[in-house]
């Protein structure tokens, strides 16, 4: 199940309904998820979850499912 807090941040950033968001939601399917939108999203997530992604991760985390997995890895690690 997706983290509701993450869903809320994604929804707010791209003007989506939380119900529309699935792990497969990604930069290719959401028009507002462009390069600037992506950085804003990543910075919002970093602030909310108090994490910091590497530059490689920032480049790769372009789907909600991928972000969730990265956050889980942080929580476990």
């Amino acid at each position: 199940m997706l983290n509701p807090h993450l869903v809320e941040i994604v929804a707010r950033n791209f003007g989506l309904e939380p119900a529309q968001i699935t792990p497969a939601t990604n930069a290719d399917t959401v028009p507002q998820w462009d390069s600037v939108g992506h950085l804003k999203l990543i910075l919002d997530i970093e602030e909310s979850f108090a994490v910091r992604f590497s530059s490689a991760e920032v480049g790769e985390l372009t789907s909600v499912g991928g972000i969730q997995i990265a956050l889980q890895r942080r929580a476990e690690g």
Partner: protein
Amino acid sequence: MKLAGSQMHSSVPLRMALLSSCTVQLFPELLKQELGAAGFDAEFWVAGFDQVRQQLLDPGSELFANRPDAVLLYLDGEDLFRDCLANPFAFDDAAKLNIVAARAAELRQLVSAARRHLPETAFLLNTIALPPLTPLTGLEYNSEYSLYDISYEYNRALSALARETHAVIVVDAAAVMAWVGYRQWHDSRLWYLARSRWSRAAMRELAVRYTAAFAAWCGPARKCIVLDLDHMLWGGIVGEDGAESLQLGEEGVGLAFVEFQQELLNLSRKGILLTICSKNNPDDALAVIRSHPSMRLREENFASIRINWADKATNLRSIAEELDLGLDSLVFIDDNPAERALVSQALPQVLVPAWPSDPAEYKFALLGLAMQAFPKLRLAEEDRSRAAMYRTQAARRTLEAQTCTLEDYYGALQMVARIGRADAFTVPRIAQLTQKTNQFNLTARRYTEAEIAALAVSSEALVLWLELADRFGPNGLVGVLIFRKESMALWRIDTFLLSCRVIGRTVERAFLSHACALLRSLGIARLVGEYRPTPRNGVAASQYASLGFSAVPQPVGRGDTTCWELDLTRQSVPAPEWIEIVPVAETVHA
């Protein structure tokens, strides 16, 4: 700091264009929020990457078509001087300064070209700072290799541009970088992935500064600070702990209150009015303000004082009325959250900032608040004298209604003049008055503290001060007379000055009258005064004549100076009956 409780009547629409040497696409969102809190409804147009020259130089550019109210032109030091930073060993001083001069000249050119198309637009430029860790670290300052002078010279050129062009505003981004810290300011991931020179933390703080700068350009919003007393200007509660037990002075946290007061005093010099609203016994609180040795703020620094047990909202209304200000000019500072809540609820127009509970935080809380609530780009003469102006205005208004003749007015003022010889306590103020008094200053001789201290103990000189109080409270030390011995029988008035606060109240008459009696008692027979005209002291031109001195022939080669003499054996200066004179015995000598 967030300005809680700030409520603007309406939002002013604002079109802002962003141009930059780096990516700034993440910035508008944060800047819009900050501008919104300050009452601007901002819309942004952001130039494409590295489009600065094209947009500012092409008469048909999208920028000019947009007709922005403000152009935010951010040029980062690391972009401007990328060549120097990339290979700092390749540039000698001359080459480096040439590059700086060329970049500064180009900026000047760009702005002046753009201003032809946008004559009403404000141009927000920025100072630069280079990274604090470079290959030259260590060599810098110790050898001929350096980078620091790049930002220094560039920023100086910016300042020159701003001072000659009203529409140019410099935002001190270098100070923001220092405040945030470079490691927080710079997010290397954002640099490599998006060519952004700023972290989000940097953008937040920059948004605050840009907003303050633009608000200042639009005109001052707030004018007056309303202060609580206990646990605000001093630690402890005067009514319970007593004046001697307050935390205020050089010891421990007492210094926090001293420094806080010092910054308040500095704000008043920027033209911001200080007022008091405190629940206290007026006698207890006023005694501290008047005589606690560590107080930096005295009664004269406050434009209005309300010390009583009435509720604060009522007092704030009456302060605003007395000073003829709208409630939206007031900023209410109180350590008590309950009072803050009450005021922000009862008077939503008043700005009620959140306030730290730890006095150690007061100073920077105040400076941050001042930057946002009282932004200023340029200082007018009027700013500097505003507090005094309001105070006398308020007093005059009351008296006007009650008095009809000038004598009645003087009498109604209930003036008391304390006169004494200079001592360790008064030397600094005396020196300061000689430095800054321009109008009622018959000779305009300027002295340092050391010089005054020396005169004070010399047997060849007599240094007198005068403190004036009236029914509105003390005016502080406002008069100085310095006499110098010419011979046993003849003394000369070296300096005769009064602060502009008390001109036109016959104080000079009372002062000289007392001084003459003193000189006579020392066996001095003749007194010579001089008037040395300056562009500002015309008000005192006929002073000696009106005090009964007779003109004496001019010594050759003394310019416009006029000399006047009084025969102390036969003449005296009559003291005005409406001023009570209290001679003060000497205390500690300087």
